[in-house]
C-alpha cells in the first residue's frame, strides 16, 4: 500500500466528491442575495443534471452539456421567480414544491429516455475526455498534494472560477452592490431607481443556472448511470445549509465546501487512512461506520449553531429582506 498515495487520494476525493456542493452553494448565494430564499436547490440540480447529461451526450460535447444544464436550471429558476416575484407566492412553499417537481422531472425524463435507449457516457468520447482530469503544469508535480489538488476535471476548475467571479461581482461591482441593496431593503433600492423585479428575475435565473451545472457534475461523476436513485442524493439540501456556514460569501463557500467535504469523505477514505498509518491514525477504523455517516450532518448542525451565535454579534451576511416578497404597492 502506497501510504502517501492514500493521503493524495484523500485530498483528491475531498475535491472530486464535493465540488457539486460549491455549485449549489454559490448558486443559492446569488439567489439569496437578491432576497429570495429558494429551497428548491435539490430539484434545480436534478433538472440541470438530467437535461445537461442527455443533451451533452446527444451532442457529444461537454460544453453543450454545461450550457444545457445551465439553461435548464435557469428556466427552473424562472419558474421560481415567476411564482414568487410576480405572483407573490410563499417562497418556502414554492421552493419545496420545486424540489418535488424537479425530482419528478428527473425521473420522468430519465425513465422515458431509458425506455428508448440510455446514452452511456463511455460511448461519447468528447464528454468522457472533457471530464477527464487535467494536470496543471508544474503544480501537479508537487509531491503529496500536487495530484490531489492540481489534477482535476474541467468542471472542478470552473466551479472555483465561478465562485471567485461571483465573490468579485458581489463585492466589487456596482451591479453587485445594487443586488445586495435589494436583498437588504428592496423598497429603498427601488426608491433610488433600481428595477427590483428585473434584478430579482435575472439573479434567480443566474443562481439556479449555476446549481444546474452542479447537478450535471454529479451525473458525470456517477458516469451517467441512471438507476432508481437520484444523482443529487441530498446534496442540494446540504448546499442550503452551507450558504449559512459561508455567511453568504462565495469565497468562504469554497472553504466551507472543503471543510464539509473533509468530513463527508472520511466515510470513504477513513478506513484506508487507518490502514496506511496504523500507529498514529489506526483509531479512525474503530469509529463506527454510522458515526461517519452522521458526521457531515453533525458538523452542519454545529456550524449552524456557531454561525447563529456569530451573527448575533452583528457580522452576518444574511440579507435582511431574505424570504420576504417585495410588493411595490406595499411601500
Amino acid at each position: 500500500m502506497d501510504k502517501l498515495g492514500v493521503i493524495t487520494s484523500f485530498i483528491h476525493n475531498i475535491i472530486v466528491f464535493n465540488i457539486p456542493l460549491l455549485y449549489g452553494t454559490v448558486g443559492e448565494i446569488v439567489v439569496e442575495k437578491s432576497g429570495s430564499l429558494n429551497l428548491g436547490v435539490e430539484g434545480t440540480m436534478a433538472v440541470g443534471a438530467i437535461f445537461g447529461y442527455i443533451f451533452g451526450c446527444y451532442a457529444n460535447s461537454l460544453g453543450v452539456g454545461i450550457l444545457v444544464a445551465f439553461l435548464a436550471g435557469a428556466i427552473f429558476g424562472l419558474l421560481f421567480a415567476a411564482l414568487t416575484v410576480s405572483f407573490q407566492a410563499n417562497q418556502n412553499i414554492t421552493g419545496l414544491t420545486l424540489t418535488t417537481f424537479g425530482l419528478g422531472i428527473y425521473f420522468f425524463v430519465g425513465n422515458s429516455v431509458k425506455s428508448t435507449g440510455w446514452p452511456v457516457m463511455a460511448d461519447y468520447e468528447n464528454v468522457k475526455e472533457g471530464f477527464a482530469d487535467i494536470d496543471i503544469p508544474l503544480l501537479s508535480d508537487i509531491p503529496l498534494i500536487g495530484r490531489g489538488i492540481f489534477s482535476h476535471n474541467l468542471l472542478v476548475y470552473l466551479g472555483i472560477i465561478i465562485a471567485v467571479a461571483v465573490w468579485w461581482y458581489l463585492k466589487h461591482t456596482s451591479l453587485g452592490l445594487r443586488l445586495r441593496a435589494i436583498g437588504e431593503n428592496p423598497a429603498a433600492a427601488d426608491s433610488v431607481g433600481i428595477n427590483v423585479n428585473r434584478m430579482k428575475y435575472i439573479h434567480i435565473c443566474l443562481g439556479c443556472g449555476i446549481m444546474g451545472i452542479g447537478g450535471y457534475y454529479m451525473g458525470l461523476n456517477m458516469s451517467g448511470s441512471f438507476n432508481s436513485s437520484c444523482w443529487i442524493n441530498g446534496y442540494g439540501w446540504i448546499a442550503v445549509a452551507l450558504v449559512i456556514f459561508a455567511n453568504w460569501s462565495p469565497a468562504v463557500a469554497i472553504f466551507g465546501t472543503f471543510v464539509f467535504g473533509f468530513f463527508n469523505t472520511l466515510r470513504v477514505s477513513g478506513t484506508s487512512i487507518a490502514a496506511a498509518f496504523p500507529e498514529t491514525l489506526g483509531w479512525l477504523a474503530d469509529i463506527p461506520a454510522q458515526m461517519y455517516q452522521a458526521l457531515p450532518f453533525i458538523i452542519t448542525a454545529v456550524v449552524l449553531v456557531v454561525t447563529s451565535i456569530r451573527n448575533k454579534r452583528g457580522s452576518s451576511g444574511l440579507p435582511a429582506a431574505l424570504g420576504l416578497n417585495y410588493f411595490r404597492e406595499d411601500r
Partner: protein
Amino acid sequence: MKKFIALFLAALMLLSFAACGDTDTDTSDAASTGESSSAEKAEFKVGAIYINSKNDTAGYTFAHHSGITSAMKQLGLNVDTQLFIVDEVPEDPEQVRAAVDTLVGKGVNIIFGISFGYIDALEAAAKEYPDVIFSHATGYKSNETNFNNYFGRAYQARYLAGIAAGLKSLQTGNNNIGYVAAYGTEYAETASGINGFALGVQAVNPNATVYVKKLNAWADEVNESAFAKELISSYNCGIITQHCDSAQPQIAAQDANIFGCGYNSDMTADAPKAHLTAAIWHWDVYYKTAMEAAMSCGTADKFVSTMGTPAYYGGLKENFVDVSPLSENCAPNTDTAIKAVRELIISGEWDVFSGVKLTITAEGTVTKADAALVDNAGNEIVAAGGASVADGVITGTMNYYVAGVVEA
C-alpha cells in the same frame, strides 16, 4: 346556483360509481374468460409486497418483480388480472399488516413478502389468515402449514465468479481485489458472499487478497461509486466486485481500465470493457415452484408439506443462482474451470465451505485436496477433510471472514 352545484356533484359521484363498477366487471370477465384451461388456475391470485416501487428498472425489487411476472407467464397466469401488488412498503409491522389486509381483501391465494424486515408481521399474519399462504424472502421464520421462507446459495455463484476473478488476477499479475459490500460480518448474507468469492479467488491465486469496503447501507449509489474508486486508488485493486445494487463499481472499474465482477444482474452491458461475469439470481425458479405448489396443494395448510421444506434454499443445482455468461474480458480457460467446478457442486460431490480445497491452475484443471477452512484471525472453522458448514450457519450465523480477506 348552489342547487346546481350540488346536483352537478351528485351526478359526478354517480358517474364515478359507475366507473368503479365498470372496472370490476372487466376484471371478473377477464378472469372467467382467461386462457388457462383449469378453473383453479384461472381463479388463482398472487399477492406481493415490495419494499421499493414496482416500476423500478433495476435493483432488488425489480429482480423480484421480474421473477414473479416471469414465473406467472411460464405458468400461463395473467399478470394483469391475477397479480396484486402493494409496493413501497417500509419494514414497519403496521404497514406490512395493512398491505397484507389489502391483499387478503383482494382474495389472493399466496402472498410473497420480499424484504427481510417483514418477518414478524408475516409470521403473525400467517397465524391470522390460515387460508392464505405466506412466503418470505431472505427470512428464517416459518411454520408447518402456510408460512415458509426462501433464499438461495449465492455463495456458490460467488465462488464461480471468484474463479473468473482469480484467473484474471493471475493474467494481470495484480493480486489486489476490491469488494464493495453493503455490509460485512454483520450479516451472514454478505459474509457468506464475501467468503465464497474469496475462496474462489484463492483456489486459483493463493496470493490474492480481497479488500472489503463496507457501505453500511443496502443501496447507496453515490457511495458505491466512491468506494470503488477509493479501492482502486488507495489499494491499487485490479479487480472490483460488489454486493450492492447498482453497476457503479463496475463502471468505476472500466473508467480505471481494470476489471470487475458484478452482482444481481449481468453487468456486461454497463461496463463492457471491464466486466468479467456476475453472480446472478433466477428468482423465477423459486416463484414458479412456489406457485405450482400453491395451486396443487389444495388448501393453504398443506403448502409447506407440498414444498417439502419450510425453508427453500436453492443453489446452482436448482438453477436458482448462477453466473452470467462470461464476457470476452475473461482470462483463457475460465470457462473450463467454472464448468468443472459447477459440476462438482451440482453433483453434490463438493461444496464451498468444507474441509476440502480446490486448486485450479491457469490451464483450468481442477484438483481436490483436504485442507482446513481457516478464518482470517487464524481460527479453524472446518478441519481438513471435514464436512461442509451447516446451512443454518451460512444463512444465519456466519460472522467471520476466511483467510485472505481484509476489511479496508
